[in-house]
């Protein structure tokens, strides 16, 4: 938290209007699952076989400058040089989140040294039935739970990340939170379904109002023991208590094609350098009310940045954050406010 706060405040004091907080680093698209809701893996084999080199990954992190690096994919643990990539990022004092389905985690744990800079963020889409259905393979939930236990036993930082679609059952999601906290994970991250432009699952994406209703049911009357590894104001946003405009530059994405325009979800083209991405993207074309593709999106990669900008943009924003952190169930009657495009990114990723 301190690192994020320092970074954001420094950017603001320097008058930087747009800056990244989380680099989304996709070193490969190949996965060992074939989830029906995922739009990241539909490529010809020769594209799926492409990997970013460690040097490319480090150069992207250096060029971008974000204090946090999230490594999704594809399945990052498939990458033969992932330990080297992670080691180099940790050496640079980047807070690294390896987003994995955990199928290979237990086998690969020896290759990673526990560090405050390294967190395994485990993809868990619900209780056993929901998760195994979501990933289109039986038994994956149990494998992931076993790997989480082993990673925790070895002293690694472990969080979960959960994507919820409109068929989510709020009561079962709440039970799922109980189970994850009982496992001992450091925190949970949740987000509505991704609105991938090219995902095969277009019809299942949550509409904005349904998203708010769903998350209000899930997060209302929140249990004290639940810990979320994301901005408290972003959770308020998901519940419909606040409105934000998108901050698409908050989570810039780098992969085998280059720097993705404009965000982690949309593919409108690629830039060769981070500067070209920031200077050459028509940012005003994106966000709620500006682009049809963004109409129903409430995903963390665009809106947590806005929530963090709200937190650190003013004393009142900071006060709101403190209030909802200490009293998450006190905001039932708060009127919804709209805050302009964020200027930073989120503390979705806890930093200590």
């Amino acid at each position: 938290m301190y690192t994020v706060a320092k970074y954001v405040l420094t950017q603001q004091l320097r008058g930087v209007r747009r800056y990244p907080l989380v680099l989304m680093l996709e070193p490969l698209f190949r996965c060992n699952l074939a989830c029906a809701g995922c739009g990241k893996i539909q490529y010809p084999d020769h594209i799926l076989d492409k990997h970013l080199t460690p040097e490319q990954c480090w150069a992207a992190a250096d060029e971008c400058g974000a204090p946090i690096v999230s490594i999704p994919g594809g399945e990052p643990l498939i990458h033969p040089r992932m330990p080297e990539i992670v080691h180099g990022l940790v050496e640079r004092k980047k807070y690294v989140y390896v987003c994995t389905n955990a199928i290979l985690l237990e086998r690969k744990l020896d290759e990673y040294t526990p560090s405050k800079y390294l967190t395994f963020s485990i993809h868990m889409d619900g209780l056993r039935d929901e998760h195994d259905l979501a990933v289109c393979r039986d038994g994956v939930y149990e494998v992931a739970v076993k790997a989480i236990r082993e990673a925790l036993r070895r002293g690694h930082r472990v969080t979960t990340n959960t994507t919820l679609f409109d068929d989510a059952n709020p009561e079962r999601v709440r039970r799922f939170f109980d189970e994850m906290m009982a496992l001992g994970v450091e925190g949970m991250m949740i987000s509505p379904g991704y609105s991938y432009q090219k995902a095969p699952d277009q019809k299942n994406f949550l509409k904005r109002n349904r998203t708010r209703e769903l998350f209000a049911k899930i997060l209302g009357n929140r249990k004290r023991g639940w810990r979320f590894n994301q901005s408290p104001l972003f959770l308020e946003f998901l519940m419909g208590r606040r409105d934000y405009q998108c901050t698409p530059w908050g989570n810039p994405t780098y992969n085998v094609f280059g720097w993705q325009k404009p965000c982690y979800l949309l593919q409108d083209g690629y830039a060769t350098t981070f500067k070209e991405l920031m200077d050459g993207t028509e940012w005003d074309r994106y966000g709620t009310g500006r682009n049809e593709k963004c109409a129903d999106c409430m995903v963390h990669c665009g809106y947590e940045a806005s929530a963090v900008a709200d937190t650190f943009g003013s004393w009142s924003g900071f006060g709101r954050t403190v209030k909802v952190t200490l009293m998450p169930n006190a905001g039932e009657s708060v009127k919804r406010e709209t805050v302009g495009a964020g200027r930073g990114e989120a503390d979705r990723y806890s930093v200590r």
Partner: protein
Amino acid sequence: MRRSALDVEKRTGTPSAERRRLIADILEPPAAHPAHLDMTDSKYHTPEHTRLEGRTFRPSTPAELAEAVELAFDYRGDITVALTSGERIVGYLFNREATGPRPTLQLYPESGGMRQIAYAEVASIAFSGEDTASGKSWEAWVTKKESERRAEAQRAEADARARGHL
């Protein structure tokens, strides 16, 4: 005129009637008709009435060429680009710069490396590779018979195992 049709699509997320006519006008019919083209799944930019796999664009104007490149950019399979020099390149089109004095496309050839090709060098674009996003929707998954789902999951698992990823 045709650029505005594309703009409508970009705003609304669906091809305009004009653009559908345009696509129908400049597309050649598929050389073959693979069985999986009969599936009803659709993608954001390639709904079933404009399914591209197996088809070839032979644009006759810069506007048609720009349309063809946009469709190829959105396509999740390999394409075959025939150049005016007679060269043919099979690969995945991952980027394009449609504006400026010399519009170019970028492609990862199946054989390796990366190629940057000026629009002016393109004679035709064939959607020759499998559309890897077709027929893989969540709805299709849940409506399949249990035995079909199991078989598909087993195939994916066997593929991952064969690659040493499990």
